[in-house]
């Protein structure tokens, strides 16, 4: 069997002529006066594992439910594989969904839960049962076929739900917080299993999650949502390295934020006046900035070096005092108070065993290059 070409490698969203598999156009869903989803347009390509990421109440689940056919859009249209699905009821759509709390049928065994979709489709029973046992093998549940859902652990229930939603080989699989109910360790294992299954089936997955780490691990692309709108769409590194707004910078990972005003561009660096930092911040220039414009500068904690001695040749250097140290094993987190009163969060990898660790109340220098600061105008 030929390997299905992976969207993760082909990156069809970079190709202007590529035809999207799902085309969401100006979709709005209102509950009374409240717009849960507010004029969203989004293209998703075949074979993608697309994550809708956002806090609770941002509309991500509502958008997913409109794709599944459980909610009718107030306005706008959804096309799946070139077909407008407005008038297609949930039971006729080429989509399947994995529900947040799994929604396994409690009165049916694992096997009956999984075969349910095939039998409704009219697949002969013998063939259906064969496919079920293949599927249960894929999710490593072949020994649990006769159990009822309440006799399974959370991780096993999650795999039944996955098997049940995959058995009809849907063109589009919708997953609502698929790993939300699992503990951390199991969640990490399952993330990779999920990617593996998605890639081997070549199906398109849309995953709703509030867990940014999960979104970063799983997705080909992430759509960050806020208040019913998509604020940024991009590949995980793009979202992390190049957030377009303070909200995204803050939501994905942790970040140190400085407020400031644009001073002048000096050759290839931009100078930002920031009383909050106590120094003028030097960053890489971006287009379209005016003098004295208010901007925010975001700096990731791992981009800041913490040293006892003043480093040579760094673009930005500030002095501070260590307030707190958290030792996490692979890295340490420092909270360093600047002379201006602002506290910065800095992470440092614990690469060397024989390091003399920096302790509380030590005076330290924080430094970062001019490429580390991200200029945000929104």
């Amino acid at each position: 069997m030929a390997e299905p070409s992976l969207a993760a490698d082909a990156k069809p969203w970079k190709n202007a002529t590529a035809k999207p598999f799902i085309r969401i156009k100006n979709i709005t869903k209102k509950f009374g006066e409240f717009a849960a989803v507010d004029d969203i347009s989004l293209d998703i390509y075949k074979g993608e594992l697309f994550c809708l990421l956002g806090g609770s109440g941002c509309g991500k689940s509502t958008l997913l439910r409109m794709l599944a056919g459980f909610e009718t859009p107030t306005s706008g249209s959804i096309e799946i594989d070139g077909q407008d699905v407005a008038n297609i009821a949930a039971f006729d759509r080429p989509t399947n969904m994995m529900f947040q709390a799994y929604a396994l049928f409690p009165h049916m065994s694992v096997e009956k839960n999984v075969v349910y979709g095939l039998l409704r489709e009219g697949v002969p029973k013998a063939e259906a049962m064969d496919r079920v046992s293949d599927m249960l093998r894929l999710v490593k549940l072949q020994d649990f076929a006769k159990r009822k859902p309440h006799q399974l652990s959370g991780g096993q229930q999650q795999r039944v739900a996955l098997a049940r939603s995959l058995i009809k080989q849907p063109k589009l699989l919708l997953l609502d917080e698929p790993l939300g109910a699992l503990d951390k360790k199991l969640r990490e294992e399952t993330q990779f299993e999920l990617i593996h299954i998605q890639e081997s089936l070549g199906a398109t997955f849309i995953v709703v999650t509030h867990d940014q780490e999960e979104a970063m691990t799983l997705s080909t692309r992430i759509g960050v949502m806020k208040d019913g709108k998509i604020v940024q769409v991009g590949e995980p590194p793009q979202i992390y390295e190049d957030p377009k707004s303070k909200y995204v910078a803050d939501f994905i990972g942790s970040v140190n934020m400085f407020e400031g005003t644009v001073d002048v561009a000096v050759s290839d660096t931009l100078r930002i006046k920031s009383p909050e930092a106590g120094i003028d911040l030097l960053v890489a220039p971006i287009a379209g900035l005016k003098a004295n414009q208010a901007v925010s500068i975001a700096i990731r904690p791992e981009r800041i070096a913490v040293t006892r001695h003043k480093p040579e040749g760094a673009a930005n250097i500030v002095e501070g005092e260590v307030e707190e140290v958290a030792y996490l094993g692979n890295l340490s987190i420092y909270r360093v108070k600047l002379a201006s009163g602002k506290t910065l969060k800095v992470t440092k990898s614990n690469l060397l065993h024989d390091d003399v660790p920096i302790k509380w109340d030590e005076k330290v220098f924080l430094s970062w290059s001019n490429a580390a600061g991200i200029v945000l105008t929104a």
Partner: protein
Amino acid sequence: MSAFQASSPWRKTAALLARIGLTGRMLIIAVPMIWLLVFFLAPFLVVMKISVADPMIARPPYSPLFVQGPDGWSIKATIGNYAYLWEDSLYINAYWSSIKIAFFSTVLALLIGYPMSYYIARSPEPKRSLLLLLIVLPFWTSFLLRVYAWIGILKTKGVLNAMLMKIGLINEPLIIMQTDVAVYIGIVYTYLPFMILPLYANLVKLDDSLLEASADLGARPISTFFRITIPLSMPGIVAGSMLVFIPAIGEFVIPALLGGPDTLMIGKVLWTEFFSNRDWPVASAVAIAMLVLLVIPIMLLRLAQSKGADT
């Protein structure tokens, strides 16, 4: 600390009771146990005792169970009354007819009650409370009055016939009163809330996402209803059916008021034996036989349910 505990009067009492083997848990269980003993088991034993006596023209009108003879006390019991129930076809027919009427009433109540319960359970909150109130509202009027009201509706020159004739649906009045149809109407009307309430309590807990999951997997609404909703509401169906079937089988007032001379129900037979024939022993035997008749299917059902819950 222990000095404080010992000084508390409650602790002292508890310690005292514990010494004679009484704990708080037992005391709490004792209340319903004593209630059942006094108000269920004792009367049941009295009825049981009368059912094995001979009728006598005396006061009370039956022979005593313990007789003092020349050589001390002896027990005098007979199963003649039970044999009589078996021999006289009237009783068998009455039992059979009661079961039939109760069964079909239960089925009708289920068919009417299920959609109502479903609708109430799916309604938004303020409306739901109002609808439930409306279901319970008839209980605020005397049961007897409500059955009387049905006579006014169903009789030959009653409200229903007048209305149907006015709109020209019928030319002659329908004879409903004093037939089994009237009895069915009365029983279904009276016991419908007992069907609706347990069904509602069950259906309101039904998880919407299960219905969505079923639709998502390609099941049409009708298929979802029979494969998901009905099986999951089985406990409510069973509870509601029991609450209708059991009292309906022994119902006396409704067949007496709405039924005719041909309506044969065991409650009516019991009444006749007791008050008209003053044959207390046979009346008691009728009551005991009915109880056994009811208890056996209930126990079988409980057994089936507990088995179903295990697997």
